[in-house]
């Protein structure tokens, strides 16, 4: 196996951080955009670009709710995204299996 076989959608530092952060939540739970931004350390614009790519692939889902005058966006990892991260992790393990760590 080569690094070229790793899921190109996840194999990007920022998107890997997003997916790994959301995967630490229990299945079905969502994280607010602002908290995710705070944890990842990205500008809103940059984070939106990466989230859109992941959402297009159905790895994450986002929801916008209104609480009075405040609009809150939440992001969650889908079952498909969790499975993709699992496959990516196994592929990484296989790749690194023969290498000194």
């Amino acid at each position, binding site marked *: 196996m080569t*690094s070229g076989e790793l899921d190109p959608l996840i194999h990007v*530092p*920022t998107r890997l951080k997003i997916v790994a952060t959301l995967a*630490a939540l*229990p299945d079905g739970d969502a994280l607010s955009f602002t908290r995710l931004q705070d944890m990842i350390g990205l500008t809103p614009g940059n984070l939106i670009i990466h989230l859109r790519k992941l959402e297009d692939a159905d790895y994450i889902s986002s929801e916008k709710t209104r609480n009075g005058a405040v609009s809150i966006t939440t992001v969650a990892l889908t079952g498909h995204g969790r499975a993709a991260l699992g496959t990516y992790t196994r592929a990484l393990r296989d790749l690194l299996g023969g290498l000194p760590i």
Partner: protein
Amino acid sequence: MNHTPDTTTAGNGGNFDPQQAAALLDQTTRQARRTFTPGPPLLWAFRAVFVLVAFGGYWLSVRGRDPYSAPSGGLLAVIFVLVAINIGWSTWALKRAGAGVSGPAQRKRQAWLAVMLVAWIVAYAFTVPLYHATATHPVWALYPANAPLMIVGLVAAATAALRRDWPMAGTTLAIAIVAAVAAFGGPAGAWLIMGIGLCAVCLGTAAFKVWQQRRGVVRP
């Protein structure tokens, strides 16, 4: 929080090699686990000291007294301060872990906390009718030492098991077992057994939390 430099913006992986990816995945997962954990290891370590000081101090204060009598006011003041710190720290840790998080698991956790609050109140409120019924000194000493934590421990273990939160179910069941065993220690000895037993449970939970948070995804 330490951030690994982002070598790309919105593009592809570029020169992101698998070793870097594994390190980043492990580091991010550990940070996220630490952030979302409502009971950090340090809080459990504090609880270990708290129960040892509170229950151990209580035992030192009441042992050898015949007839059994209440401990000194100074010790009770120390215990109340420790209880207040524990409640304050726990509330802060819960708020921090749950900030920005929503969904079914979060709602179940909030419902569980409400059930636990009721269990605590009911378990300690029972001391009021005991007092009015002029309970004997041994009963008065044994009930507050063991019964509330036995009741709360069993309720917490059952409800945590329903949520499939097995670590919490294990910890709270261990607390209930310690409380049940301590009852055999008598009015004074029960406090010592509770102090040592609960201290061991809290230290064990702290060690488990450290292991859980440090465990890697790619490299366990």
